[in-house]
């Protein structure tokens, strides 16, 4: 079974992000990591590989070449192959453009199951997966907590606000997953050493048969008009000390603010 995991490279959010020209994230200037939610998708793929024979896992990323070092963690935990779709013309891609490009790459490989994260920590759009599946004409199920494959279908359990449900789709299918997947594995030292020298298969737009003028910023469907820093927030009133007095402050705050009109 061929499993493809869509893994985006995102900035490691430990500082304030730098914005480059045209208010885009300067993706070359920041320490890139695998989008944390996509690590759950990798985990699900690895669990499938442990429970059934013949599972081959490929990571697929659209992003700059500089994304690679952060993505190699996927190989270190056991992903078999990595494909990086990278082309200067892809810079400035909108969400739809990203989906179109990923779908074009997926048409060049065989897959039974495509996995992705529920959303990304930088964009938080949560739309690319369903868009890719729709472009490929395959069924999709989003926000899976657990997943099993059998009888040519994928079975998913996912939470609802008021309970849970199980859904099933015939393969090939697309499934996005959430943190409910549970604990992630850490790469072993051997895994890290082994992945170090490996490089992803890199595809340019030309390899996908896409004209540069038909992709990326040139075809972006959305534009950023302006970006403003937030209004500075008044510093908090800080209270400490004798618990009885502190509790009085809290009750007063609630009354004073007329919290609910």
């Amino acid at each position, binding site marked *: 079974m061929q499993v493809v995991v869509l893994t985006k490279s995102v900035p490691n959010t430990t500082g304030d992000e730098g914005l480059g020209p045209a208010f885009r994230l300067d993706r070359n200037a920041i320490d890139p990591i695998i989008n944390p939610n996509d690590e759950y998708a990798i985990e699900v793929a690895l669990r499938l590989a442990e429970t059934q024979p013949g599972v081959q896992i490929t990571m697929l990323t659209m992003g700059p070449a500089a994304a690679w070092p952060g993505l190699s963690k996927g190989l270190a935990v056991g992903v078999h192959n990595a494909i990086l779709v990278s082309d200067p013309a892809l810079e400035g891609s909108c969400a739809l453009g990203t989906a179109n490009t990923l779908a074009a790459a997926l048409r060049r490989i065989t897959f039974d199951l495509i996995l992705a994260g529920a959303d990304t920590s930088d964009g938080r759009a949560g*739309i690319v997966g369903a868009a890719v599946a729709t472009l490929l004409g395959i069924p999709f199920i989003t926000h899976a907590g657990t997943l099993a494959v059998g009888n040519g279908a994928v079975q998913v359990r996912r939470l609802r606000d008021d309970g*849970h*449900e199980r859904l099933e789709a015939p393969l090939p299918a697309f499934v996005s997953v959430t943190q409910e997947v549970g604990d992630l594995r850490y790469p072993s030292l051997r895994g890290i050493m082994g992945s170090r020298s490996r490089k992803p298969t890199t595809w340019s737009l030309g390899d996908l048969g896409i004209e540069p003028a038909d992709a990326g910023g040139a075809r972006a469907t959305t534009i950023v008009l302006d970006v403003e820093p937030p209004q500075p927030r008044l510093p908090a009133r800080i209270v400490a000390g004798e618990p009885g007095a502190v509790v009085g402050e809290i009750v007063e705050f609630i009354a004073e603010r007329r*919290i609910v009109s």
Partner: protein
Amino acid sequence: MSGAIWFIGESEDGRLQSSGAGVATLVRQLAAAAGADAVGLIVGSEPERAARELAGYLPSVLWARSAGADSFVSPSAQAAVIGRLVAVRDPGYVVLPATPAGRELAGALAARLQWGVLTNAVDVSWDGRPIAHSIVFRSDLKVRSAFAGDHGVITLQPNVVTPVLSGAAGTLEEVAMLDGELASPVRRTELVTGTAAASVEHARVIVTGGAGVGSREGWALVESLAASLNAAVGATRPAVDAGWVGYSQQIGQTGKTVRPDLYVALGVSGEVQHRVGMRMARAVVAINTDRDAPIARYSDLFVVGDLAVIVPLLIERLRETRPSGLPG
């Protein structure tokens, strides 16, 4: 006149979904500013009642009933129907709530129509075209963005607009389905409901517990403070991972986005992944032993202290002197 602005609603147990009324209100206001028609659309197994509710907010509502016994209508099938209607009726823009269901439908529609998507708007204004306002990144940058062309899909944070009835009942129109149009390869094989805690998404007061609550026994304090404030219970991810509370109550990047009048954070550090879910709260009170916890920067009242000591006292004091201005 610009192309109509559509709101794609959903029915939940036959009613309009809870986020629907607010998003529909924004669509009505946006369309008025644009001089365009505001139209609601509901596709579902029991769409009629939800459609009637929606007609309280929008001047015209289309609805379509899925045939078949199963109440589950897959988003890909919905997208196919909506895509067909869009092609025939030619609206300008489509707006959905940025909920899990709204997002997946937005993705499927964008792909089908090849329209751009502006996501997670906290407001949409009109200036010859829709302008989406959003808040991004750790540093809470305020971004305004627009579509390059004359069409697009917008996802709106579900609780940023207060629902306001239009004052007139909109027209209702049933749309016929094509044969087999809603057939889907995705099947629902099990549905278990009725295990819900009070939803955080529309709560006016939320009491959230974090890792600092420490234990399942400690969690009872969170629940009892919530009860005395008539609040919904929220949680950080470590509290959910520890099994003290269900995932439905998680607030943050991979949980809910909330906008209460009062947010009480107990033992919550305020990491960015949590903060993106609560940064629109109107007032924040935090209790934390660590004076330097990041949440101090996003609080209005920051109490340095042990929640295990302060919360029981607070509950007691609230019982004695109910402060004015609490709901219910």
